[in-house]
């Protein structure tokens, strides 16, 4: 996988807060800080993994980056163009460049629409191909993701989970995007089928020079597929590093706990586990200071009041922690 250091997408201090309403008048009482200040550069041709616990803001980050959510704060610069305040009409040419693959492709397919027609839809919006040319292209796409021409006339319920994910992938690549957000694309699949889809994503990336933002809670899949990994906790960045550095030298206490918690499919090599106590705090009422201090095994007094700064500890390796 050739990754040059050319920045494709620059995400600057991006925040996405959702209002929480309550009381008789349904006034806004507080905010869920789903994404709370993310800054990063995504390089051309790379796969950037985003990991962290349920509710930490991975999907919201993906949707916000794709312009599917309004920004609460921050700046999005795609290929040198600041698109933060673009209208939907202005965004159209950029939307063609950015696509998304979902965890449950079934939910995003119309059950009454033939697969072929579903795949042609994006081509109608974004290209001016003639009907026969569109059909030709869709058949090529079906072949490319390992499906067959006869699948063109089938309906979504006639496909297995793995096949539906292939359809989701075909749809995402149909208009030749350069950037794809993959949101848990293999989480709902059986492991044997999951491995097939991972291979497909890798092959397509190589062939089309795609850049992926790969959201997942499966740290094994992330290691296998990603060049760099961002670890999030309660909407914030806690560690960012090239994949091998992160797995071999996890430095933030949360990353350490996360990696040591994965059950290894091998016997007799029991690892010492960093034991966390307590549950994930609520994102509408995040702890002051370091967001992780309520569960951190090495928290000190100042962690409860002072927010740790984001700093570089090694080439390309960043963390936010007072003690490491």
């Amino acid at each position, binding site marked *: 996988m050739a990754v040059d250091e050319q920045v494709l997408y620059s995400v600057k201090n991006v925040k996405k807060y959702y209002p929480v309403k309550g009381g008789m008048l349904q006034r806004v009482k507080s905010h869920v800080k789903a994404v709370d200040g993310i800054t990063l550069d995504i390089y051309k041709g790379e796969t950037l993994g985003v990991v962290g*616990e349920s509710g930490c803001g991975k999907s919201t980050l993906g949707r916000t980056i794709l312009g599917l959510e309004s920004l609460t704060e921050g700046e999005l610069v795609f290929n040198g163009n600041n698109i933060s305040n673009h209208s939907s009409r202005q965004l159209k040419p950029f939307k063609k460049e950015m696509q998304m693959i979902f965890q449950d492709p079934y939910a995003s397919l119309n059950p009454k629409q033939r697969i072929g027609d579903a795949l042609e839809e994006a081509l109608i919006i974004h290209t001016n191909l003639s009907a026969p040319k569109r059909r030709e292209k869709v058949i090529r796409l079906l072949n490319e993701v390992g499906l067959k021409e006869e699948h063109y006339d089938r309906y979504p319920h006639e496909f297995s989970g793995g096949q539906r994910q292939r359809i989701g992938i075909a749809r995402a690549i149909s208009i030749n995007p350069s950037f794809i957000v993959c949101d848990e694309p293999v989480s709902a699949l*059986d492991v044997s089928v999951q*491995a*097939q889809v991972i291979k497909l994503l890798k092959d397509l990336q190589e062939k089309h020079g795609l850049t992926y933002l790969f959201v997942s809670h499966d740290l094994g899949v992330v290691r296998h597929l990603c060049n760099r990994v961002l670890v999030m906790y309660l909407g914030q960045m806690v560690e960012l590093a090239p994949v091998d550095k992160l797995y071999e030298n996890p430095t933030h206490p949360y990353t350490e706990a996360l990696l040591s*918690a994965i*059950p290894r499919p091998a016997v007799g090599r029991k690892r010492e586990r960093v034991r966390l106590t*307590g549950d994930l705090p609520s994102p509408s009422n995040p702890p002051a200071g370091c967001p992780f201090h309520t569960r951190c095994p090495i928290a000190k007094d100042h962690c409860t009041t002072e927010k740790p700064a984001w700093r570089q500890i090694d080439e390309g390796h960043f963390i936010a922690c007072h003690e490491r």
Partner: protein
Amino acid sequence: MKDTVLEVTNLVTKFKSADGLLPAVRGASFSVKKGETLCIVGESGCGKSITALSIMGLLPSNGLITDGSITFNDQNLASMSPKEMQRLRGNDVSMIFQEPMTALNPVFTVGFQIREPLMIHQKLSKKKAHARGIELLKMVGIPSPAERMNQYPHELSGGMRQRVMIAIALSCNPSLLIADEPTTALDVTIQAQIIDLLNDLKEQLDMSMIMITHDMGVVAEIADRVIVMYAGEVIEEGRVEEIFENPQHPYTKGLLSSVPNVDDPDFDLKPIAGSMPMLNEQISGCRFHPRCPHAFDKCFHESPKTFSVTDKQHVRCWLQEEEVAQNGGRRASSL
């Protein structure tokens, strides 16, 4: 054998459907010893939950056991009345269900749901049941257990709800606990806490456990012995070391090489082609043959017999027969 708690022999469970009776479990046999953890592993739809529900006498209304026997501490469960089964479930066998949210009743407090079985089955007074409930919540690591008793399920996190489920399941001091994917819906850090908890409790209470999972990592953490299921059949069985270090069935091998290894950046991912068949699919011979890279003539026509690799490891695959024929030597080929 005396220390065998549960013995399942040739279990066949079928579902009534528009296409007639369709088997979801096809002649499964296995046993669980005292103090042992048996893992049932396999992909979605292979029959893990239905096997467990058959044992518990809790099959969906269109499901029925059509063959085989289930012996628990010398009692034949398949011939028990629903009333007797209910008594057994409250006293000797407990189950933690796959979906914690649906298993706890949203309209009752945690306290109510944990007191109820104690009052019914152990005939404790409400006061005693309450005190015991607090003890149980404490045992499963829930902070401020007395306050939790008054809370409703939606006020707890997923991990905490699962702990409550475990506490309820343990309230009758079962000799056998069946846990159906108790950690699948949880984050890894919380999953690790629950696995540690189950391992600790099992030691403390000298309980037997059947753990159902599709995660080979979880199997390695918790199992003494493993059965691997595919399309309703047990296709391999063995001690946990045997399954991980010397898997014999092509499907077991395939499962192990389909999971990316977190500790190895160069892990060679080898998917299994195709996907799990539907219940109504007719497959002749070995049910794995359409996906098997080693399938040969015999596999298409004859359902494989079970061959023994060691006294504990048994494999349902024709390749083993060849191996026996070739002077018992181990085949060097891998997937």
